[in-house]
């Protein structure tokens, strides 16, 4: 059985956070990926991942990047799992 991949974008209102979220949504849409996307903007939740700069990108509970908007090719590789 295929389990859905869960992608979380951690961040509160910074411009890079918005860019990252948009980018992820766009990638998922264009590649028609079976992925759940969640934007996390509660600090208590964000801090559970132990990051110190936003945005954070979490795929299936694992922190993949912090403080940057990674390149599309890199994002795609992570999202596809």
């Amino acid at each position, binding site marked *: 059985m295929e389990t859905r991949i869960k992608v979380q974008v951690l961040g509160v209102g910074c*411009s890079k956070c918005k860019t990252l979220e948009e980018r992820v949504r766009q990638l998922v849409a264009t590649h028609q990926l079976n992925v759940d996307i969640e934007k996390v903007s509660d*600090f*208590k939740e964000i801090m*559970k991942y132990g*990051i110190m*700069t936003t945005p954070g990108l979490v795929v299936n509970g694992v922190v993949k990047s912090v*403080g940057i908007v990674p390149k599309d090719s890199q994002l795609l590789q992570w999202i596809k799992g």
Partner: protein
Amino acid sequence: MNTRAWSFAPVSEKRTYALPLLLLPVWVVIYVFLQPAVDAVVHSLPGMMPGSMLTEAVRFFLYEVPKVLLLLTLIVFLVGIVRSYFSPERTRRILGKRSTFTGNILASLLGVVTPFCSCSAVPLFIGFVEAGVPLGVTFSFLIAAPMINEIALVLLFGLFGWKTALLYAGTGLLIAITAGYVIGRLKVERFVEDWVYAIRPGSGMVPDEAMPFAQRIEHGFESVRDIVGKVWLYVVVGIAVGAGIHGFVPENFMASIMGKSAWWSVPISVLIGVPLYSNAAGIIPIVQALLEKGASLGTVLAFMMSVIGLSFPETIILKKVLKLPLIFIFVGVVATGILIVGYVFNFIY
């Protein structure tokens, strides 16, 4: 913002090194020939009488905008490379178990070089507290990081000269160190929101610090795209207003309002400056023009520091982790430091 422009996917290393080496001579040539070029352009324009107010304002604008943007691009690029060596995680490790006073000094210095965005102030604050960084040391970092940044320094250097830039950096550091130290001595731990101490943070991601140099260069380009892409408009508008003041406001006009003899000008400047939030890029050209028209250096420094260093949005964000009394203590202590700097410089000069 078009972020795609620089994300030239797998870059060959050669290309990464070649680009800056190619662009640097171009930069130098433009910088060297800017003044004569602008003079020639201004003189060739119809109706530009030498020495007239309009001519001077136009000349100021046409020269300062490209000059400041050139300096900004180069410095932001270099700072981007330097910053790739200082992640917040690493800074936290360095500050971890420091005693207060050395910790305050170190934190202020690291605040200058560690990448920082006020939108990340909260996770950074929690991350520091979690790692056992003393509260006062954390505040030294939080004060220095926004106040002394490359944008402010470039504009100060470009428009005022290196002495003022150094003066600003030096006094800014002094304020960050002492204000952090004072806050630390006030035993304000109880004014931190309780949930901050209750958090058991996850392991997070260990950033790969063994970055190849080519990647650091890319990091530099990325910062240029990011920062210059964001502030260029502030620079243009700020310099345009500055040029207007430069050309049209009479000499010594500001002397009575922001001059040395007006003792109240320093606190008023701070009072206006604290809630006023602007980018360093927008405020410094205006302030430079005011200085020229008779405002005194101490007053101008105080105004600049309170606008750049104490920002309203950052305070609002910090409210999520700090209880109200600590917010007031934070703003109060920093504002007092700025006041003292203002008076001292008005007294000396």
